[in-house]
């Protein structure tokens, strides 16, 4: 049972040290964001006219997003063209 109580002490120390460390670590990160990142954001703002929709698509985390664009665009243009031609014929 002595062994168990020693384990308890170790577990307790670990709990204490662990929580203190986690809070300290993430706390410093808060300071870093509030002090450094905010200043950086002021100093280097995002360019105002950015290709927004494009960017959003690229960020969607979607599988083929980035790679396809040109192919999609090509495919779409051709599809739309075909549709336009078909349509114009009908009219």
């Amino acid at each position, binding site marked *: 049972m002595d062994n168990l109580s020693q384990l308890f002490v170790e*577990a307790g120390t*670990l*709990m204490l*040290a662990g*929580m203190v460390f*986690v809070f300290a670590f*993430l706390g410093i990160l808060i300071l870093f964001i509030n002090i450094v990142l905010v200043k950086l954001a002021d100093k280097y703002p995002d360019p105002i006219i950015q290709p927004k929709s494009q960017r959003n698509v690229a960020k969607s985390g979607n599988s*083929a997003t980035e790679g396809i664009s040109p192919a999609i665009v090509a495919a779409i243009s051709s599809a739309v063209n075909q549709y336009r031609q078909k349509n114009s014929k009908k009219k």
Partner: protein
Amino acid sequence: MESLQTLWMSTGLANFEFGQVVMMLVGCLLLFLAIAKNFEPLLLVPMGFGAILTNIPIAGFSEIGGLLHYIYYAGIDTGIFPLLIFMGVGAMTDFGALIANPKTLLLGAAAQFGIFATLFGAIALNAIPGFEFTLADASAIAIIGGADGPTAIFLASKLAPELLGAIAVAAYSYMALVPIIQPPIMRALTNEQERKIEMAQLRPVTKIEKVIFPLAVLMMTIFFLPAATPLVGMFCLGNLMRECGVVDRLSSTAQNELINIVTIFLGLGVGSKLSADKFLNVETLGILALGAVAFSIGTASGVLMAKLMNKFSQEPVNPLIGAAGVSAVPMAARVANKVGLEANPHNFLLMHAMGPNVAGVLGSAVAAGILLALVGG
């Protein structure tokens, strides 16, 4: 006739052991939960399947020369697969909500109390005859409270490989059960008024902040906790690839094809640890119980921390978002949003809950590093 005898002796029916049958049923249960109940199917489908394969008599999937043997030793024993998954998760993570409201990091920190309290609880279980968890075992079990699959698998493979199967089962099961475990605790610890609190809109976050953030996290980890750098480093590499904007094709591969391939192998490899001798014992029951405790304590401490913050902060903080601090991205954030909507149909907490949610991923990676440094040495 000799040939028929050989044929019979080479059937599974002639060679089954009871434990193998039970473990196959466990594998089927995991498949059922994944497919019919949508329990973290991306990992539980290959894992349940791996559990079936590894318990097939004669076939020798997990013996030298067997497929699962190669997968386990090449990818999990080395830690490579969980680290690659973590890189992919990093490439899928948007830290915008966290950077916009950095004090939510405290929620992600508080929720880690689920881990350390469970560590204490696992040691306490040793008082019951039949349990003999070492400090390393207890640490590997406690990390279930981190609600983060790859972190749990990585730590368990280092500290207690023989418990890996049970720990992974518990971690992914409870992650899937987050929508059931969390709401009662959240409601019990908050009143209607608190759940109705609306939060201020988040400021926009610039590109440079998002690029510097993963590097800053890595630097801090290097300075204070190098033992966490495999996990945090690969996570930050994925996030940097996502945000830097110049390697989109690498980022896309990391969060799609690469993570898919590795997920199949990781699931099979973890499943291969679900053998009767390692799973069918009282320790597994203890692990399942401790896992539930860990999730509950983590949820509760996140909510309580949020209540505390709400008292001292100028801007109002809805305590519900504290529950998202356990990670289980993005499920826990959605749960916070849903419980919030019940109290106030115009209150969308999802973006606010993403802050503590991704903070919880960092928090449990840090906690894993502490356990590795202090126990794993």
